[in-house]
């Protein structure tokens, strides 16, 4: 799969007319900077949407972290030669924050709405994607799983 890091093509694909908040490309070896990335995303969202998503900001940040860790670790295999992209847009009409993460991996076979993890038997199962599905309002995969899209709707403002 080829990755488009061009914001125009992303916007035309899925988020036409939305306000672009973050459009970044990261190399796989930047996974060690995930805490710094997370701090930038959080501050950017707080600055751009100061009164939106009150009480859910850390849900959004948790999903961004999980989605990007998945892309950097599995999609890019932590390689400096491979990149993944993060696009965050805001739809003022729906008051919805849309996130799209593309990675160059071969995807995965994640079953949407995976059963709720059984904590007694979960072991060290990576279930970051399940967290995203539960915390966000909408979540879907494209390109056989190498594109992750999720949405948070600011319900308090509607």
């Amino acid at each position, binding site marked *: 799969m080829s990755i488009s890091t061009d914001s125009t093509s992303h916007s035309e694909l899925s988020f036409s007319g939305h306000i672009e908040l973050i459009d970044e490309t990261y190399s796989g070896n930047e996974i060690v900077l995930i*805490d710094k990335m997370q701090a930038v995303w959080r501050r950017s969202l707080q600055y751009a949407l100061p009164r939106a998503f009150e009480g*859910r900001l*850390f849900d959004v940040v*948790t999903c961004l*972290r999980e989605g990007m860790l998945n892309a950097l670790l599995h999609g890019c295999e932590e390689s400096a030669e491979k990149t993944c992209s993060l696009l965050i847009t805001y739809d003022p009409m729906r008051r919805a924050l849309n996130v799209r993460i593309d990675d160059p991996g071969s995807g995965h076979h994640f079953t949407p709405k995976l059963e*709720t993890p059984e*904590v007694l038997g*979960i072991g060290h199962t990576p279930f970051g994607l399940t*967290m995203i599905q539960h*915390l966000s309002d909408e979540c879907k995969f494209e390109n056989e799983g190498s594109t992750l899209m999720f949405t948070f709707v600011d319900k308090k403002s509607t």
Partner: protein
Amino acid sequence: MKTSAKYIAGKRQLTLTVKGDLLSTNAEQRHEEIMELLQKSNEPREHVRLDLGTAKMIDSVGLNLLLGVVRFVREEGSKVSLRITSPSVNRVLAFSQFDRVAEIDFRDKDAPED
């Protein structure tokens, strides 16, 4: 060390206070600290309380850390409870049905202690 311990003899309760978020980048260190304190404590205990009152978020690796600690404590026969103040952490624990293995004490960080 970001983790500290306090023993209340009357309740046979060991409280472990863990500072900050539980994330992939610090989970291993926090796990080592918690396990060290659990193993160092010689007092008889029936209840281990994990105070995560300063955690604003937890990721999947942090959640696995918690599961490992809870399993260890339950296997030794003690009850486990988690004190949390973050709605986001509470939602993660709720959908993962963490309340099946540990008591969840979710309250505002300014609420008085029992």
